């Protein structure tokens, strides 16, 4: 009953003070919304568990070459088979491959990522087919009938959900293939699988240097830690490096979760930065609400003193005050769950669709049961934190003195210290958070506006993958290139056409090379370079600068000596004398063919524009000398901006299909949108951090303003005394600004190093970038905010006549 009346009293108090209630609820809702959103996002995506029985023990095994972590199909099949025979840490150790597959019917052709898998693949992922059966190891044996298991999407889109689909044939990469199973809609392992085929890759009869790369996965034995598994892997890979020093130079491997592999090695740091940021924001919100409640408690000091005089026990008074914070936090918590839910919905709709890849199927970016539990816990903890300290402080004073009203208007030393401490804490938190956020936003902005070293705006791109059976010979592939180019160039919107294996801003292979005349010893540590096959006219179509020598031309034929055009980075890294023309190199891990450098061009950025990629050396190889089945078509438009050309994607798709029905163009888009999609993840994080920065500024400003305003209100009488003694307005401003500056300097002295440390930490993962502008601008901005927060309440106090200020209570 008492509790009910306490709640009732707290509720009445909140209703009676709508402005106070609105302000505290706003502040707390802001903090809690960000916190719940971030919790739900991180736990629904980046660290979401694999929804399988052994999900917590499933690992991807990827290679590390020259310090770079690769993911997906990165292990040479020979290495995989060597590892499989020896690893002890896994109860399952297997592999799959991924290829783009063309599925064609009589009237259309579609491209999908096909997964070539073994039985264990389905076993570890708890797969149960909706119709038919799964792939078995027998399906992969030589001479077995070609079979496939299709996804629910393909079943619906291509067969309209026909229940008699089993046994029907699909033309996959020109080969008729029997459908033996349909997977349920929910099954998309390993990330966004659409079609599954038998695994046939083997090392048998294949020269090591020609061995394909496979994606390796395993299930750790119970009780085996990642560290143990990695020690074993490193040991076995070291043996391979020892045995095959040329092919396996600088090559190791590591096991990591599928979740980490899907997002890359920087994920943990991003998560840490996000968690720190929302933590800071929630702390700011708690400080602000706590401070507001404390101010209210001081205002109600007389009421508290009367209650104490009437015999109310302290615990009872504390509980009564706590209900106020509890109600504020509960209201805020409910609103925060609603807002966070809406925000997550928007994230799902808008942002995830802009990613260049389909989000892994285990991502569920939404309010879940776990989010609700977390929201309840966070809300209750914040209610306790924001309520208990003000309540204890407010009930610990001399109630007799309060009743006698002997200390009117004065701010006690301890509450003065508390106010100063709050301002310092707000400066520290907002400074660290703003530096971190601006560092990230600055970095992403730099990345979005970076010069990739080629034309970008007037370029359209498309990818084609020629079927292996039909395009085994180099001549046929070259013929295809010529046909496609001739057809496309006849279109009025197109001014030039070229081909490349990799587009700027997209990842390209990175391999170890050896330079002619350099002795790498018996345990060679070969350097690495990116390499990209390009057509003869690629450099002119992409408006690249030839530094010296020549680019590819008709002299670079299939049967003539191999040639390469290298970038400035390549020259600077490998030819200290600056002379590159005529020098030779070869790829140390595959063949013995030497490439002669015939020209040097400007650097081009492949992959995300992070320092590591910006500094990478690149060798361009002639597609004329080594035409590949998979290429990107580069289409230069007559318009300055490729986005202005309408109907081009459809036109390119039609033309490619007319030329080769089994090789429809896919990923038809402008180069700019391809680059933007590649940066979508970083842009998303950057946008989040803009929200963090804005929230922290709003909270810090309102908090500091609140504290300063409260301090100045409590010092109104002191202002009156000083004015009575002859202080003019400027003296009063100076006094408070000086006090504010002291707290500002202390706050900045702590906050700036923390912020710089956080930026540096993210800088190492290429997620943020510091600059003098940020390190000066952010503290300057906070100083400006503090000055405003001091100026306004002081000017308000100065509007009072000194005699009114003297009487102020």
């Amino acid at each position, binding site marked *: 009953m008492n509790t009910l009346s306490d709640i009732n009293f707290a509720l009445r108090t909140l209703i009676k003070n709508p402005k106070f209630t609105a302000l505290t609820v706003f502040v707390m809702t802001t903090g809690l919304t960000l916190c719940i959103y971030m919790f739900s996002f991180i736990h629904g995506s980046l660290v979401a568990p694999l929804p399988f029985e052994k999900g917590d023990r499933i690992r991807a095994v990827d290679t590390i070459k020259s310090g770079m972590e690769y993911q997906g199909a990165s292990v040479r099949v020979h290495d995989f088979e060597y590892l499989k025979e020896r690893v002890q840490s896994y109860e399952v150790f297997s592999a799959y491959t991924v290829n783009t597959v063309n599925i064609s019917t009589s009237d259309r052709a579609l491209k999908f990522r096909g997964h070539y898998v073994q039985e264990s693949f389905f076993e570890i992922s708890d797969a149960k087919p909706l119709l038919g059966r799964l792939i078995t190891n027998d399906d992969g044996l030589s001479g077995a009938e070609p079979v496939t298991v299709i996804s629910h999407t393909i079943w619906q889109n291509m067969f309209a959900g026909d229940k008699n689909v089993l046994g029907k044939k699909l033309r996959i990469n020109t080969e008729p293939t029997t459908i033996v199973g349909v997977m349920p809609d929910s099954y998309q392992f390993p990330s966004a699988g659409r079609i599954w085929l038998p695994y046939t890759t083997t090392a048998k009869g294949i020269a090591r240097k020609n061995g394909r790369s496979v994606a390796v996965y395993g299930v750790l034995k119970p009780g085996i830690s990642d560290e143990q598994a990695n020690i074993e892997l490193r040991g076995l890979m070291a043996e391979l490096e020892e045995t095959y020093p040329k092919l396996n130079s600088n090559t190791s491997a590591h096991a990591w979760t599928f979740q980490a592999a899907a997002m890359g090695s920087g994920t943990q740091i991003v998560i840490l930065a996000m968690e720190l940021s929302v933590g800071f924001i929630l702390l700011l919100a708690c400080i602000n609400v706590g401070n507001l409640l404390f101010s209210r408690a001081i205002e109600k000091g007389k009421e508290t003193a009367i209650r104490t005089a009437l015999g109310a026990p302290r615990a009872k008074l504390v509980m009564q005050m706590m209900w106020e914070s509890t109600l504020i936090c509960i209201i805020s918590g409910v609103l925060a769950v609603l807002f966070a839910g809406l925000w997550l919905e928007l994230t799902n709709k808008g942002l995830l669709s802009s990613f260049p890849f389909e989000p892994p199927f285990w991502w569920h970016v939404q309010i879940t049961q776990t989010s609700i539990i977390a929201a309840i816990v966070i809300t209750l903890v914040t209610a306790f934190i924001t309520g208990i300290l003000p309540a204890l402080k407010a009930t610990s004073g001399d109630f007799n003195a309060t009743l006698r009203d002997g200390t009117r208007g*004065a701010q006690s030393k301890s509450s*003065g210290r508390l106010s100063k401490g709050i301002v310092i804490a707000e400066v520290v938190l907002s400074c660290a958070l703003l530096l971190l956020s601006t560092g990230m936003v600055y970095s992403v902005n730099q990345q979005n506006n970076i010069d990739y070293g080629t034309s970008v705006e007037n370029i359209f791109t498309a990818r084609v993958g020629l079927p292996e059976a039909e395009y085994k010979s180099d001549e046929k592939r070259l013929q295809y290139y010529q046909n496609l180019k001739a057809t496309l160039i006849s279109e009025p919107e197109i001014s030039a056409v070229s081909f490349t294996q990799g587009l700027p801003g997209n990842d390209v292979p990175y391999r170890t090379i050896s330079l002619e005349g350099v002795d790498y010893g018996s345990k060679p540590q070969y350097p690495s370079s990116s390499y990209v096959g390009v057509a003869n006219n690629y450099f002119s179509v992409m408006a690249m600068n030839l530094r010296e020598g020549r680019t590819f031309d008709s002299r670079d034929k299939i049967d003539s000596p191999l040639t390469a055009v290298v970038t400035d980075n390549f020259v600077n890294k490998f030819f200290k004398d600056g002379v590159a023309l005529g020098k030779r190199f070869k790829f140390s891990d595959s063949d013995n063919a030497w490439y002669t450098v015939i020209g040097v061009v400007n650097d081009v950025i492949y992959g995300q524009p992070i320092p590591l990629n910006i500094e990478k050396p690149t060798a361009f190889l002639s597609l004329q000398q080594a035409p590949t089945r998979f290429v990107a078509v580069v289409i230069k438009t007559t318009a300055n901006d490729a986005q202005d050309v309408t109907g081009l994607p459809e036109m390119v798709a039609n033309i490619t299909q007319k030329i080769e029905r089994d090789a429809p163009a896919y990923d038809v888009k402008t180069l700019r949108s391809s680059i933007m999609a590649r940066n979508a993840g970083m842009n998303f994080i950057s946008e989040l951090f803009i929200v963090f920065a804005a929230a922290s500024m709003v909270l810090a400003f309102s908090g500091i303003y609140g504290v300063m305003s409260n301090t100045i209100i409590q010092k109104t009488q002191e202002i009156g005394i000083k*004015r009575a*003694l*002859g*202080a*003019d*307005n400027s*003296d009063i401003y100076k006094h408070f600004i000086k006090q504010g500056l002291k707290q500002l300097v202390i706050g900045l002295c702590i906050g700036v190093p923390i912020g710089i440390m956080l930026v540096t930490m993210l800088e190492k993962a290429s997620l943020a970038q510091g600059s003098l502008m940020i390190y000066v601008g952010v503290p300057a901005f906070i100083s400006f905010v503090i000055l405003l927060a001091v100026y306004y309440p002081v000017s308000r106090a100065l509007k009072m006549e000194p005699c*009114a200020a003297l009487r102020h209570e």
Partner: protein
Amino acid sequence: MKTLIKLTNIKKVFSTDEVETHALSDINLEVKQGEYLSIAGPSGCGKSTLLSLLGLLDTSSSGSYTLDGHDVVDINAKQRAVIRNKEIGFIFQSFNLISELTVAENVALPLTYRKDLNKTERTDLVTAALEKVDMGHRTKHYPSQLSGGQQQRVAVARAIAGNPSIILADEPTGNLDSKNAELVMALLDKLHAEGATICMVTHDPRGAKRADRVIEIFDGRIVSDSPTSETYIEEAVA
């Protein structure tokens, strides 16, 4: 003796949206240099408002006010601050010392707003003022470490430190016991004897008797203005 303060037809009206309160009406008052004036009257009659106007802590609604021959009605806030600082010393009922400052710092406070004094001069004036009120031995104490009487003596020192033309005291003994009240009043007597002009609002007849002249205010008007001797003889007779 020259006229230090001259108020002519002073009115003070406090207005809210609905109510107009006439705190002071038709106040005409002259205070000579060296005079010791006591302002008496019941609670809410306008005594403190008058003292606020005299001390330039508030502005009148109409009327004229000359201080030491200078019109102080139409001057700006900065000029008013300069006059408060140099010409007026305040003593308040609740002492109004700043709790975060030491005794010496409190006394030095008005002097820190003056541009014409260097640090040594300020220190000398503070020391002299504290010696005068017999508080020279407590310079480093904080107000909370002093008794009420001691705090008011420090407040008196602060009021006289800058050698003002006039001392305005608002119920200076209101928060003190009789013994300490006597000490403070004796201090004011001493200052008066040394030539200080004092205007004091007080309820306490014992304090009022010490002044040369008493004005009584009722409902915002001066209802009597006479030498102290006459006022208290009449009261005694009555």
